[in-house]
């Protein structure tokens, strides 16, 4: 028997640890590439100042990176510790991208980050630049594999249920990897990281320029990051639109919640700019609409019907009824794998197995054979995520995106047309922009993950069934532990980050890597120093 409180606490713990981890990841993704760009300029021009620029931002990168790595460890284990049924049920598919991520991407990133930090005087310019690129490549590949895994949860492609082993199994790795959902998500998310890094660099550079400190470094950093940022923010918005398009096909319930569309309407349907969704009454208490805009926005056509919540719920009820015999047959097959009648019953209903699971929660003794009409009605209401949350969180994300677009357009114009350091009004605004991409990233996660509810794997496995069978006490213990630890971590990180930013770039002579003892290497250091 599964305890509802344990499920809710598991969800809370996952959301808290994932959102926290995702505070550090975007900056790592973007800053690693920005560092590679800066160092490329250094290697091409040979100007020492670009080396100082690279080293300064790499110092901040490393402070952030440590926490990204630390909190990532939690995620790698949390599926097993807290989502035990999920892990057994889809591990055959979901585990593969996670393992490949470690093998192909994270090993590369982590091995070379050590050389990036400590190898300045031991590597030639070209070697060090290569190492920096490998760190960037590693972190971005890492994101690719994680989002391939997440893409499967959003739209489970390339997999089929095997009644012999009672779990989902991989049938096509290519379908899993090249799933449109996974690929669009990957590009949208990694570019969101580039935007984050660009704002981080411009914001801190503006802070220096405003105070007349480190002008040479700040001006150059600002220009590089502005260009990087304007390209990225354009990309993130384009890909966001594509994601809505692709994701909307896979998950009509998420789309309907994002737009607070309670009734299916004639195409072209109106678009709610703002609304006050009331889930109990299944309507918007009020809304501000633009007629005809929703359909072309979501479907890129004028005549495609976008299903509203009413239709999605009705579909869910029908699929639950069809899925119940599949669950019943599975129970027989578990004890008697050779039972031919049960197998043919299962095969006739297997497409709706997940919907059969959906009603398990409400059926007497959690046995779907006992499911009543009321149970089915309740379960079909569950098929819709929390509309109010999704509607508004999505809008906050979009608003942040548009705000950042305006910011970067202005910052590029200012820094290309003249000396941005004279535009004090803009320099005053810039540091306050730093939180915006972080908010957008977090809101994006909530839209994607809360919007997928009630499913852990869309249409296949309810979140509610996925959790481990822990006691409430265990869950409170672990949640409190994470909150305490992570709060301390956040305080330490912010303190060190602010301190490093206040201190600013260090003078060059202190940068030598002094672990050199080998006379040959010492000579190498001298020759590289002369080149500057």
């Amino acid at each position, binding site marked *: 028997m*599964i305890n509802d409180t344990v499920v809710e606490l598991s969800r809370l713990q996952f959301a808290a640890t994932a959102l926290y981890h995702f505070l550090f990841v975007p900056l790592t993704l973007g800053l690693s590439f920005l560092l590679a760009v800066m160092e490329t300029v250094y290697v091409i021009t040979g100007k020492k100042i670009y080396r100082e620029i690279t080293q300064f931002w790499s110092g901040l990168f*490393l*402070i952030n990176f*440590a926490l990204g*790595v*630390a*909190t990532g*460890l*939690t995620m*790698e*284990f949390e*599926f*097993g*510790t807290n989502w*035990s*049924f999920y*892990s*057994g*049920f889809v*591990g*055959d598919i979901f*585990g*593969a991208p*996670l*393992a*490949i991520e*470690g*093998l*192909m991407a*994270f*090993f590369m990133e*982590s*091995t070379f980050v*050590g050389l990036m*930090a*400590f190898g300045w005087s*031991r590597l030639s310019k070209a070697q060090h630049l290569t190492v920096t690129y490998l760190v960037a490549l590693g972190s971005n590949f890492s994101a690719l594999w994680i989002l391939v895994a997440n893409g499967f949860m959003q739209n489970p492609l390339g997999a089929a249920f*095997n009644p*012999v*082993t*009672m779990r989902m*199994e*991989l049938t096509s*790795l290519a379908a899993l990897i090249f799933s449109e959902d996974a690929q669009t998500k990957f590009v949208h998310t990694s570019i969101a990281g580039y935007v984050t890094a660009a704002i981080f660099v411009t914001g801190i550079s503006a802070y220096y320029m405003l105070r007349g400190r480190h002008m040479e470094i700040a001006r150059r950093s600002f220009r590089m990051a502005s260009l990087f940022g304007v390209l990225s923010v354009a990309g993130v918005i384009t890909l966001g639109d594509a994601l809505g398009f692709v994701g909307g096909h896979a998950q009509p319930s998420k789309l309907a919640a994002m737009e607070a569309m309670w009734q299916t309407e004639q195409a072209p349907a109106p678009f709610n700019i703002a609304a006050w969704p009331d889930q109990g009454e299944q309507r918007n208490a009020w809304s501000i609409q633009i007629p005809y805009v929703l359909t072309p926005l979501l479907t890129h056509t004028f005549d495609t019907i976008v299903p509203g919540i009413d239709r999605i719920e009705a579909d869910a009820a029908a699929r639950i009824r069809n899925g119940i015999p599949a669950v019943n047959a599975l129970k027989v097959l*578990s*004890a008697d794998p050779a039972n031919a009648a049960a197998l043919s019953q299962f095969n006739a209903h297997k497409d709706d197995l997940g919907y059969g699971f959906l009603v398990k929660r409400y059926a007497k003794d959690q046995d779907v054979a006992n499911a009543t009409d009321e149970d089915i009605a309740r379960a079909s209401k569950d098929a819709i995520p929390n509309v109010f949350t999704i509607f508004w969180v999505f809008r906050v994300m979009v608003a942040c995106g548009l705000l950042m677009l305006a910011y970067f357009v202005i910052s590029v114009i200012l820094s290309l047309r003249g000396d941005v350091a004279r535009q004090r009004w803009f320099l005053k605004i810039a540091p306050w922009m730093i939180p915006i991409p972080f908010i957008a990233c977090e809101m994006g996660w909530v839209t994607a993950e809360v919007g997928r509810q009630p499913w852990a794997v869309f249409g296949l496995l309810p979140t509610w069934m996925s959790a*481990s069978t822990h006691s409430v006490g265990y869950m409170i*213990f*672990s949640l409190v*532990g994470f909150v305490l*630890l992570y709060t301390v*971590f956040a305080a330490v990180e912010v303190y*060190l980050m602010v*301190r*490093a930013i206040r201190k600013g770039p260090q003078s060059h002579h202190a940068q*030598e890597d*002094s*672990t050199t*003892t*080998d006379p040959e290497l010492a000579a190498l250091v001298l020759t590289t120093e002369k080149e500057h």
Partner: protein
Amino acid sequence: MELYLVFKVLWWLLLGVLLMGLAIMVGMDMGVGAMLRYVGRTDTERRIALNTIAPHWDGNQVWFILGGGAIFAAFPLIYATAFSGLYIVMLLLLWTMIVRPLGFEYRSKLSSPAWRNAWDWTLVVSGAVPMVVYGAGTGNMLMGVPFHFSWDLTSYYTGSFLSLLNPFAVMCGVLSLSLSVWMGGAMLMGRTARGALWDRARRAATVGGLVAIVLFTVGGIWVSHLQGYRIEHAPLPGVAQTPLQQSVTMAEGAWFDNYHAHRVLWLVPALGYVGMLFGLLAIRAGRSTLAWWLGALAWIGVIGTAGVSLFPFLMPSSSDPSQSLTVWNAVSSRYTLMWMTGWTVVFMPAVVAYTSWAFYVMRGKVKAEHVESNPHAY
């Protein structure tokens, strides 16, 4: 079907390789952390010790992450059942491990002694505790863990947290820690100049080696009296199956079945002894590189011994032995194993190659003046 059997056994071997890689590479860094306050009496000595592993700990730690990922991909039921069943122990492992990156990265960023002492202690704890948990986890697999499945393979753990800290498991944990201290000591001897720190590192490594020999021997005798597990009947090993279709019995000394059936397997524990005995001699002779490689051999022997004893079991159930998890029933599908094998064949050699290159680039001794003059050193 026979191909599936080959993949199953191959992934059992690869799991072993991963656990050995984890023990050798992460254990070395953990060993340095665990003895940080012993080998380093002054702040400079501690910084020297930390900077010997500074460029490498992050890459090495991926063995641990990959270990988790590979168990997930290749043995999903083990990942699901062990990680949730051993919940509090896993949290202990995780919480001590996640403070470690911060300990390395943040410790020397401020010069206040209180700040540095606090991080030193976190490094000591985050070096010692995970390795104890690592060994204790393996020990518990030999003891059997109380869990069972419902019809849909939902797993239920019915033991308490304290039952996981039974004397045998704790002994395995200390064995794991002592081997880590040895590896850390050998690393410190190799990367520091002769002096007080070097002497203490050698002393720690010697103690680690001696304790390891004693505990490995005691463990062997203890296991011969433990209740081992035996499959009575089950679907053929090469067939897709769940843990609900077999029958398993327990018998004293059953963990020695494989050794009795195939005498050549005695070479595995023998390898462990060779590594430990010659490794100790190498440490006494001050031959740190040799001692490191012999330490790695000892790890291979010790983990191999446990693996061979358990085979084909991975996680036996003490409360319902017939629902024990084995290589045959906890493994992924043939298709997944096939692809995972492909990725491993391509990328594992690459990992070994660039890790070796990184060690080569950063070779040489770490000295006091370098640590003190370099503001970016740990």
